[in-house]
């Protein structure tokens, strides 16, 4: 019995409500954090930062955001790309309009602006449900992208409509712009990811989270026992969009450095983030990370395997990569429809019983 829950007693309800009620989990978590903050920044190079870790962290934030809306509150959204665009353009406008204000504040504000937009587009959810809602959120996706493309004010009237992030620093360290080091990029994303994950965890274990889940599991019953669907759904849209907006802001300012609405925040982005939460596990914050890691890493791994190791032509490799990713998605769904998070939980459940099968 490697993994023990027995003997880990709680003496107060407060302890019992902790994020990691089991001591073993808690220590594991602290260890991961310590490595992430204290070791990785010193060993990271720009490939790992730019191709793997920074996108992973940013997508994890977006995935948590979408998971709050879809996984916790049950409102399927395909508008994530559009909301990320709101975050990106908001941070761009703020950065260029108020160069003196710290970038972190801009990023948080960008999240807040996205939250407002999210609430607006969340209004139809009061009437429209299920896949109808999912498709309806595409209206947000297409409209927002169109808007950022069409109104020159958003891109400061630049000739091509591209936005480019100027250099901004935190405590003298560049975190946006060309001079940013790999570890600075990584650290700012990591900090946001950790803080936001913690906030998401708090929200989902408390009363708002319960209201969201109640709406998700059975909206009519929830309303009858006292959940106001208006505030529950809209708060989910607001919080979710806040997260997604921050992810969009980071994606543009820290990761890409330049962006164009229809290219960087197209419908594919919406699908990508949705994949992440489904592969990772709906209604699970750990799952959001797992899903993001899976979908960021998998193509990189496959590419390295097929092109670099096996030396296949890139086009063939790219087509086969599509096939493999598609097949793997299906495979994972068959093995465990509830995602990597559930797979992990089942493994723990088995470990607890180990070596006995039942």
């Amino acid at each position, binding site marked *: 019995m490697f993994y023990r829950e027995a003997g880990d007693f709680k003496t107060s309800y407060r302890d019992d409500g902790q994020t990691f009620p089991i001591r073993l989990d808690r220590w594991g978590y602290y260890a991961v954090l310590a490595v992430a903050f204290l070791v990785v920044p010193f060993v990271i190079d720009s490939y790992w930062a730019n191709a793997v870790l920074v996108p992973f962290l940013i997508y994890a934030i977006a995935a948590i955001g979408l998971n709050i809306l879809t996984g916790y509150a049950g409102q399927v959204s395909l508008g994530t790309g559009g909301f990320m665009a709101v975050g990106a353009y908001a941070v761009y406008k703020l950065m260029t309009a108020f160069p003196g204000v710290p970038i972190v504040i801009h990023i948080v504000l960008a999240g807040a602006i996205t939250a407002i937009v999210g609430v607006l587009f969340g209004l139809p959810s009061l009437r429209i449900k299920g896949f109808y809602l999912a498709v309806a959120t595409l209206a947000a996706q297409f409209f927002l992208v169109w808007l950022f493309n069409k109104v020159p004010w958003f891109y400061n009237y630049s000739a091509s409509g591209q936005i480019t992030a100027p250099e901004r620093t935190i405590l003298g360290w560049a975190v946006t712009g060309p001079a940013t080091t790999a570890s600075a990029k990584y650290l700012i994303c990591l900090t946001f990811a950790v803080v936001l994950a913690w906030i998401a965890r708090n929200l989902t274990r408390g009363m708002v989270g319960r209201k969201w889940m109640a709406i998700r599991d059975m909206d009519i019953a929830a309303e009858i026992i006292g959940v106001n669907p208006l505030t529950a759904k809209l708060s989910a849209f607001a919080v979710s969009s806040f997260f997604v907006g921050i992810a969009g802001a980071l994606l543009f300012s820290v990761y890409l450095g330049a962006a164009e609405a229809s290219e960087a925040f197209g419908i594919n982005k919406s699908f990508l983030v949705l994949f992440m939460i489904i592969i990772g596990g709906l209604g699970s914050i750990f799952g959001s990370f797992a899903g993001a890691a899976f979908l960021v890493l998998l193509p990189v791994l496959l590419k390295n395997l097929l092109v670099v190791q096996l030396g296949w032509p890139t086009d063939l490799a790219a087509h086969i990569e599509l096939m493999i990713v598609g097949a793997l998605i299906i495979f994972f769904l068959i093995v465990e429809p509830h995602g990597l998070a559930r797979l992990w939980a089942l493994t723990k459940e088995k470990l607890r*019983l180990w070596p006995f099968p039942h």
Partner: protein
Amino acid sequence: MFDAMPDRETLLEVNNIEVIYNHVILVLKGVSLSVPKGGITALLGGNGAGKTTTLKAISNLLHSERGEVTKGAISYRGEPIQNMDPATLVRKGVIQVMEGRHCFEHLTIEENLLTGAYTRKDGAAAIRQDLEMVYNYFPRLKERRRSQAGYTSGGEQQMCAMGRALMSRPETILLDEPSMGLAPQLVEQIFEIVKAVNEGEGVTFLLAEQNTNIALRYAHYGYILESGRVVMDGPAEALRENPDVKEFYLGMSDQGRKSFRDVRSYRRRKRWLA
């Protein structure tokens, strides 16, 4: 009035099966039972005892719930049926009426009934005739034949589910909690129909019931299931007289039926479950 019919041929045989859900939750821990042809066999037991699971194991509906039979054998007319898909089983004459009705919400009552005849190949006329038969048994359904099943009341849905099963001209019906949520008159009526169908059409029944009282009145033989094990079985007559069954399943004590108002002053505890 009924005897246990031990001399009848055994139609369905469940031999020491184990069922596991989700690879970890062990629900049935070795259940064996046999269902004689033309009889009504009752499967009794408390909540979560495993009645539904047993029925689903027989009709092979476990897969879609991520459950599987890991041990033991099930045979119908001596032929193993574990790996048969439900459709084949229906064609062989075994049909299940699921717990919680499961009508097709968006189909009308009549369409629901017609789907019951899906596996039949004996022509539209025969099917129409059976439709009339079902409407005879359940006149209420005839009134509501054009309504979408999703909008009918619980009792109507239960009738619809029963009727749908009858439409397949089955040999054996696995009936899961037919009385749940039905008005007393209807419960009585449904069991009368079970009896009528059993006697009139010779259909064999295996029914899972919570309402021990009525089940034992209509069944010939009974199995009592607790926590995934058969704890007692015997002819219905005998079970009804058994003091334990009387106390725990029929709610009677030596002084006859107790008032539910008095429950606060006593508490039953099952002996065999300690």
